[in-house]
């Protein structure tokens, strides 16, 4: 026990610093996902064939290949074209692309779940499509989207651990590092687990309570 406390003292601050990196990755990748996801959603709904088609291909390709593969293509693969990204940037770009495809599906499902009559009522009052979207559809879709989007945030937090493979110093990278220095894998990785749980559990509680509240309505 004493021994564990000592380990905690020497490694926890180091690993906890990784949590900051994990959160930075998460926030930036989420922003990227939302921008890409919304663009893909609107591209698919735009009625412009080619634009919708491209968005469809993007969504299918990213969802049908492992995120790790995409990360390696962007970080290692692109160097063949002379594009050298630093690890953090490569991770943010990859996670945004992966997340964007998932976010697009969440957004589309949310928008489609809004009663069609809402759009018709808005149009029948003379609102343009963008105005009807902004004022009538999206606010209602937002409420529907909130629980699945919270779950999406949780998977994003966990997916940032992929960045370990290209040496971004987030939680997993640092605990791997600490474990190979100390030879105390169980102790070190349990610290990592505590950090992930501290971030993810409240979010998952929040998502569950949102779902319960919706079911009660």
């Amino acid at each position: 026990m004493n021994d564990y406390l000592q380990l905690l003292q020497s490694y926890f601050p180091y690993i906890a610093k990784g949590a900051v990196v994990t959160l930075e990755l998460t926030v930036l990748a989420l922003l990227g996902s939302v921008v890409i996801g919304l663009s893909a959603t609107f591209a698919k709904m735009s009625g412009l064939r080619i634009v919708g088609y491209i968005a469809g291909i993007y969504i299918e390709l990213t969802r049908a290949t492992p995120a790790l593969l995409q990360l390696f293509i962007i970080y290692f693969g692109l160097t063949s074209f002379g594009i050298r990204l630093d690890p953090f940037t490569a991770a943010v770009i990859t996670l945004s692309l992966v997340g964007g495809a998932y976010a697009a599906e969440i957004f589309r499902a949310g928008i489609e779940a809004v009663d069609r009559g809402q759009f018709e009522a808005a149009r029948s009052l003379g609102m343009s499509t963008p105005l009807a979207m902004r004022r009538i559809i999206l606010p209602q879709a937002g409420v529907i989207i909130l629980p699945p989007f919270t779950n999406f945030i949780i998977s994003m937090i966990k997916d940032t651990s992929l960045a370990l493979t290209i040496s971004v110093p987030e939680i997993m990278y640092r605990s791997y590092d600490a474990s190979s220095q100390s030879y105390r894998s169980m102790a070190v990785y349990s610290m990592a687990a505590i950090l992930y749980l501290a971030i993810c559990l409240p979010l998952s509680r929040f998502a569950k309570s949102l779902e319960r509240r919706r079911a009660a309505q």
Partner: protein
Amino acid sequence: MSAPILHLDGLQMAFGAVQVLRGVDLTVREGESVAIIGPSGSGKSTLLRCLNRLETPTGGTVTFEGKAITETSDFNRLRMRMGMVFQHFNLFPHMTALGNVIEAPIHVLKQRRDEAEARGRDLLGKVGLLEKADAYPRQLSGGQKQRVAIARCMAMNPRLLLLDEITSALDPELVGEVLDVVRDLARQGMTMMLVTHEMRFAREVADRVVFMDGGVVVEAGPPEEIFTQPKSPRLRKFLTAVLEQVG
């Protein structure tokens, strides 16, 4: 006779291979209220939806306020002038009653908020719901929701009002309060086309009744004629069936 506001000439509508409207000819004059009756599936809703372009007609012409409506017309402008009230109200659930009423005046007509609110309260007062201005749709009864929906439409100052079975989703005891509002509008000279199953109401408020069946206008005329001296066998059969239902 007053000037025609709306004129339909051979209006057709098909959903894929299904021909729903097979050439509807109809003229609506300023201040007139026209009731449209007919069996389920005869194309009454489709007709109204083709007028404000929620559906795109596949043939014929629609002339509104003297101008032909074509593919290149400004449909948003058209819809500002042609209000529609729906069977299921379609109130915006995330806005209060007043919020629903002022939404389009502020964002489409670009009215100032205080101006729109004053007018909105006035309109809610006219449908007897001033005290519900700050209530959300989920806090209102069906009849109250429908009255808010009518006020929301009127806030755009439409030239023509399209009403599609606006009482058929209501509990029987709530129908009266909504029909009262429509009756008032008719008295004030609002031009309207109302699809209805309420034959007694059609007889009372309509200046003209149009009987549709199979995607065409089978018979049209003043209510007394339509209800007491129906000419076509199809109308006679329809009226017999409807009156039996009422008992």
